[in-house]
């Protein structure tokens, strides 16, 4: 206890050195926390966008419909959606079910033609499980036949506004061209680039008519009550509707995106590693200096009869105290930055304005704090500080007291 006391006093005897060292540690640690908050936030936003707009929790397709992402065939569809829908609705743990029809199309404003993803939705049920209806920023949601919802970015690209007329062109199930004149009923701003930039949403009956689907749909989306137990629910749904259908979770359907996410994690780890090394080098540097200039002091202690192990322990305590101070400061700063990120977010949109990004979110990233990670970062700061003290101190204790005293 006495040693700890001495260490404590030593730390505050050299106020300036302590502040500099602790500051170096805190800068490193707060950047680690900042990185973590941003990455978590980006992942969470992407997941929310997928669940709330694109797939919900589970999606049912006719067997062999789903070949790869971005392909929307019309030759394998769910011919009897009512039957499938009713069977799924009867399963406990389901919050809502809605059919959708997705198809490749172009829209024309009479001047230009742009490729889009067409989507037919059930006006009543879709609102129950998706946020699309709450993202209408101008005009209104779908109501009548002949209505279309498009994203604000697409509207800008084609100079469209609420009330404008567009033509949607596609090929039906038989390969015959079909086209519909539609009135823009509302504009969507979802934060999901696919929806804001590339999508034309129409009532499902019209999509079925346009594509000659005779009441068929391409997919049925399911929202679960509990987001955590999708695996068992998927099995249940699959058993209930039979082998001519396939069920996927939203994660499976977006494997590519989560691969990017994994890749990003690796990138994050590399950046994190660099930040850690910089922080560690800073800590080593200041700690090394702190020990070196105190070698004569170590000589004095040895001359007074301090054993080597007690000297090492004393320095470990000092390293630990400085490390704890720096880590606490770093975590505090990191937390303040994180709170700002959670509340306000960072706007990257200018940076990516003209880049087509497959990642399903817009570039105003809001942070997401991970407190467990913060604890790790705190411990990391202390451990590194202690570790880097060990080597120079041990070296110093090997010197004869006389040499140590003479050391400058």
């Amino acid at each position, binding site marked *: 206890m006495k040693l700890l006391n001495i260490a404590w006093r030593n730390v505050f005897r050299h106020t300036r050195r302590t502040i500099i060292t602790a500051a170096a540690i805190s800068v490193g640690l707060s950047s680690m926390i900042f990185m973590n908050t941003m990455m978590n936030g980006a992942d969470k936003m992407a997941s929310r966008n997928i669940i709330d707009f694109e797939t919900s929790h589970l999606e049912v397709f006719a067997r062999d419909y789903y070949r790869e992402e971005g*392909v929307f*065939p019309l030759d394998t569809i769910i011919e009897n959606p009512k039957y499938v829908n009713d069977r799924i609705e009867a399963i406990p743990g389901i919050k809502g079910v809605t059919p959708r029809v997705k198809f*490749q199309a*172009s829209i*024309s404003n*009479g*001047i*230009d*033609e742009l*490729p889009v993803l067409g989507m037919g939705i059930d006006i009543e049920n879709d609102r129950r499980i998706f946020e699309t209806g709450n993202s209408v920023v101008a005009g209104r949601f779908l109501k009548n036949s002949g209505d279309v919802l498009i994203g604000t970015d697409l509207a800008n690209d084609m100079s469209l506004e609420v009330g404008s007329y567009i*033509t949607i*062109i*596609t*090929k*039906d199930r*038989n*390969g*015959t*061209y*079909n*086209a*519909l*004149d539609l009135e823009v009923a509302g504009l969507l701003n979802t934060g999901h680039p696919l929806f804001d930039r590339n999508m034309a949403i129409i009532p499902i009956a019209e999509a079925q008519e*346009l594509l*000659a689907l005779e009441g068929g749909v391409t997919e049925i989306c399911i929202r679960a009550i509990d987001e955590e137990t999708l695996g068992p629910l998927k099995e249940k749904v699959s058993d209930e509707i039979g082998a001519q259908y396939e069920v996927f979770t939203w994660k499976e359907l977006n494997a590519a995106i989560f691969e990017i996410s994994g890749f990003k994690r690796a990138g994050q780890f590399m950046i994190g590693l660099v930040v850690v090394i910089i922080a560690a080098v800073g800590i080593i540097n200041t700690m090394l200096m702190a020990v070196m200039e105190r070698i004569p002091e170590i000589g004095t202690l040895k001359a007074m009869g301090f054993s080597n192990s007690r000297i090492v322990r004393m320095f470990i305590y000092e390293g630990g105290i400085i490390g704890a101070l720096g880590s606490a400061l770093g975590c505090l700063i990191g937390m303040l930055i994180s709170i700002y990120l959670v509340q306000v977010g960072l706007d990257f949109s200018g940076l990516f304005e003209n880049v087509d990004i497959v990642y399903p979110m817009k570039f105003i990233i809001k942070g997401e704090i991970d407190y467990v990670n913060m604890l790790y970062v705190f411990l990391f700061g202390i451990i590194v500080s202690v570790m880097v003290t060990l080597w120079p101190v041990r070296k110093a204790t090997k010197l004869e007291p006389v040499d140590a005293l003479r050391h400058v």
Partner: protein
Amino acid sequence: MITTKKRLLLILLGAICASAQTGSEILERVDINTVVTSSHYDATMKISLGGTIREKRFTGYAVGKSHAYMEFTYPARDKGTRFLKIEDEMWIYMPSIEKATKIAGHMLRQSMMGSDFSYDDILENEKLTSLYDIELIGTDTLDGRPCFVLQLQAKVPEVNYYSRKLWVDKEMCVSVKVELFAKSGKLLKEVSISEFKRIDGYTFPTLIRMVNKLRKDTYTELSLEEVELDIETPHRIFTRAYLERK
């Protein structure tokens, strides 16, 4: 222009429209006049979009309606881009990729080389009489020339265009204008053919204008020169190997 001698020949061949009674009879005679066994030509494609005109050139080979090969020669950017069509499949070869890619699915709707033609339009090879119910709905005058007007309605589901309206020149017995409609009845494209060349008893269209009605201020004009018909076309031209040759 058609010389008296050649017109006489035409009459001898029997492929004139005057004696035709029904829409399908007219179309069959149009086919006799225009469907060649094989052809070779140099083509210039003028693509007009919003007032600017871009020119592209290619050399083409075709056998019947089923096999076609095209290779772009101008401008430098498109030089070496090749297309191969066999029956209802189509491949594109781009020198930068060095590999042929099949054009399938919804890609077929897209514009070919930025023109008003879609790949679908190029791929069409079935006889209209086997896909459509044809009705002679009246007569009209186009550019001072009397025409029959035919209404074509799909009789099988697998057609690109659900209905078409055809203007057939009474004297030359060739179609001079076609309107292509979507299932919903919307006019999608308009083709007009304003120049023909009499070669070996055929009336071969040499100036074709395609207008995509869903865009504004756009048309593509295809003019064919150096046309040779019923030639011996080496079979190797219509192979993937030839398409991907270095």
